[in-house]
């Protein structure tokens, strides 16, 4: 019997405070698409980095084609025939595709020659890209193609994909799967890292499930139910959110004809954005980050000012008001970035409660009421089951999910009239995700207007009443979530609503 392409035995890796991997075994056969399934923080990324040489395990053995090896660095990994597409792309925005690839390959070759090879490979695997395009003009999906083609140019034996679909439209995901299947058929193995069960069931031949740094099972994902896989992944049954009956209230937030300039050379300008959110409902804005999401958030938050009447809170125009004034009028925000925006990493949770909770009696005559800030943080921790050493624990010591629970708790505790959330469960574990979504639904049911800006289509469909898509700085028409489908939203995410609008006009 031929040995497996890659075999790991007892891979262990500890960081100063956490054990990321505790004796992981893994076997990848030639030509198979193998899923590594686990929650955020389960150790998937550390495991992949160990294989790719970016992290040195403390103990354990790696066998490549039956021979034990030490992979000292990513350069060594590439020399073996291991390639990796990272979750966050490392492309230079201002350079063209072929220039980026030339930089990464480091081969002595002419750009013309490389461009030809690029086109060949991209055509062969159904990944059309134009080598002469500057990267900043590419969509996220196209950028990912560049990364994949860059890997394929080196004819790898093993391709590692780390959460590749988190930024893709449903149609782009289909296309990606097509490519991966073709690669597997030609004998290249694929290690597919994800926490999305449905995708893994559609794509993969085998799955290794890890939880808290240990392998908790291997399975044939096509045979197992999603519920069973989820149970393996999180250690208990899958939490479900519960919808409440919707009660429409008064108009709470209105954006009318909002134009915003791009917030950088590679940002996206907003053109004619209009929407309304009533008290008691959840409006979702789907779409892939970089299509004007950060500009829209700044304009809603008040860090970018707009014309007076472009943003209204109830019947009060607030376009020219700053962040503090809008907060004082009852708007709360959960930002996309947790560390450094939503929370100050080196400050305690009590201080982080003060960060935006200062309007809730935590400051008396300019002096901080330490005991009240402490109690406020304690309440947030208790209400949302935040795992932390207490209100004195620095924000940076919390896991992503726990910190996000704390931030959501802090914002909701301000009893806002309008709550705006950006990517509320990005990188958050399953249990925390379910809790946060449930609390958002409950909040809306209690009569608060909620706006959710998210890349996660499943999330939007789960918690929102209505949905619109932001693509290339324009907002699509709205749909009731029950009257639309993932396919339609997906088409809109790729900008497909422009034509429909043109026809309607």
């Amino acid at each position, binding site marked *: 019997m031929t040995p497996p392409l890659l075999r790991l035995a007892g891979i262990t890796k500890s960081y100063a*405070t956490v*054990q*990321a991997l505790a004796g992981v075994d893994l076997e990848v056969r030639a030509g198979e698409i193998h899923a590594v399934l686990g929650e955020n923080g389960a150790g998937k990324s550390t495991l992949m980095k160990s294989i790719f040489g970016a992290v040195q395990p403390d103990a354990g053995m790696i066998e490549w084609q039956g*021979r034990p090896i030490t992979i000292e660095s990513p*350069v*060594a990994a590439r020399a073996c025939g291991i390639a990796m597409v990272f979750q966050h792309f490392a492309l230079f925005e201002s350079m063209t595709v072929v220039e980026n690839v030339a930089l990464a390959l480091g081969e002595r070759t002419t750009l013309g020659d490389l461009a030809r090879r690029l086109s060949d490979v991209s055509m062969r695997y159904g990944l059309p890209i134009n080598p002469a395009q500057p990267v900043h003009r590419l969509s996220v999906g196209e950028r990912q193609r560049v990364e994949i083609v860059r890997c394929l140019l080196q004819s790898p034996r093993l391709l590692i994909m780390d959460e590749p679909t988190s930024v893709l439209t449903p149609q782009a995901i289909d296309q990606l799967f097509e490519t991966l299947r073709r690669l597997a058929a030609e004998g290249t193995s694929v290690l597919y890292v994800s926490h999305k069960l449905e995708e893994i069931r559609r794509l993969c031949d085998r799955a290794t499930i890890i939880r808290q740094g240990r392998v908790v099972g291997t399975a044939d994902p096509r045979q197992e139910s999603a519920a069973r896989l989820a149970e393996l992944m999180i250690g208990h049954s899958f939490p479900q959110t519960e919808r409440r009956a919707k009660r429409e209230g008064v108009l709470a937030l209105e954006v009318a004809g909002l134009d915003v300039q791009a917030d950088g050379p590679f940002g996206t300008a907003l053109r004619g954005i209009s929407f309304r959110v009533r008290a008691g409902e959840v409006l979702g804005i789907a779409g892939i980050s970089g299509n004007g999401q950060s500009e829209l958030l700044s304009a809603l938050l008040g860090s970018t000012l707009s014309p007076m009447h472009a943003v209204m809170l109830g019947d009060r125009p607030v376009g020219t008001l700053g962040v503090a004034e809008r907060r004082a009028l009852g708007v709360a925000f959960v930002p996309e970035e947790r560390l450094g925006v939503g929370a100050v990493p080196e400050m305690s949770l009590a201080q982080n409660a003060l960060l935006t909770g200062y309007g809730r009696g935590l400051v008396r005559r300019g002096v901080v009421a330490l005991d009240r800030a402490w109690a406020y943080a304690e309440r947030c921790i208790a209400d949302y089951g935040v795992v932390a050493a207490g209100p004195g624990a620095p924000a940076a010591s919390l896991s992503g999910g726990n910190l996000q629970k704390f931030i959501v708790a802090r914002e909701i505790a301000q009893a806002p009239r309008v709550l705006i959330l950006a990517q509320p469960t990005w990188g958050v574990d399953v249990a925390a995700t379910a809790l946060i979504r449930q609390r958002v639904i409950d909040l809306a049911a209690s009569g608060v207007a909620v706006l959710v800006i998210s890349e996660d289509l499943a999330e939007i469909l789960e918690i929102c009443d209505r949905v619109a898509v932001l693509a290339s700085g324009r907002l699509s028409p709205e749909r009731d979530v029950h009257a639309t489908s993932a396919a339609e939203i997906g088409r809109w995410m790729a900008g497909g609503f422009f034509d429909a609008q043109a026809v309607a006009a």
Partner: protein
Amino acid sequence: MIGFELVRRAAPSRHMQVLAPVQAVLLTLLAGLALFAALGQDPLRAFHEFFIAPVSSANGLSEWLLKASPLCLIGLGLAVAYRANVWNIGAEGQMYIGGVCATGLAIHFQDSWGPFLLPAMIVAGALGGMFWASITALCRARFNASEILVSLMLTYVANMVVKYLVFGPWQDPQANNFPLTVEFQDDALFPLFAALGWEWFEGARLNLSIVITLVAIPLAWFFCERTFAGFQLAVAGVAPAAARYAGFSAPRAVWVAMLASGGAAGLAGVSEVAGPIGQLNDRWTPEYGFTAIIVAALARLNPLAVPFAALLMALLYLGGESVQIELQLPKSISQVFQGLLLMFLLGSEVLVRFRLRRRREGGSVQATERSVDAGARRSPGEGQR
């Protein structure tokens, strides 16, 4: 090629964060001993002359406190500003202008304002320092100019203002063309401790301006640790994006930081011209405004640690003078000590956050046997990131 690289520590040790300044001081002392030996002196005698002798008399103690007080005052202001990531390097210039404003009152109203003169000078000095700092604040908050460059360059402008005044309109007609103003009368001077009946300080120059510093220490601490404005500054310093998100005004943080540090520097200027100098001349400061930057850094921007850092830096000044007189060593040795201290401090701070590692040879593929170290397997971590 063999080299070293710095690797960020997962979590810097809390103890070492506190101990880093102490370690820097100890290393400076050790390096100082070696330096004395290299200069052909008995290290212990030189050490004694440098650190002990200058402060073993009432007069010595008086001089020590007299030097430490302005350093502490400016250092407190700078600690507040640096917490907000506002790098005011021009405290020296703000101190000049504080001194100039106080002098203006002193020489024009010596005879008419009586007991109100000194309080008026204190207020004028603080306002003068704030005014000079406000130029920098305006450039930074309105035009996004680097406060480091603007405040530093304004120091030279302030120096020119002083020179213009003491060579020109404010020059004492009886000074034989020396660049000096008239000497201040008693109404324009801080009372000496000796004059208040503290006989122990008879003949010493220590005066009541130290009270300003003693009041400023708890005030600065209270501002930083207890007020909401201090909290806003701290957030603006460590996480500017979080400050924007929370609705804290960035220009306001710049203004508060610059005005607080400028005001403190202006007060230090008053305490000098209305204290030991007793007039305005063109070279009255041993660069307190620059040394205070080291004071603030050494204190890790903690207001309660600033007095100790100021005392240490003041001792370096006195020690330098002492070894110059007693051992004929060059006076610049105190600057060497300042430099050593700053270097050791920065080095310690870096190593608290990073560790040194031998650089790996990159690029080679090693197909070596690796044993499975089962013994190294540990129980799973409790907290998952």
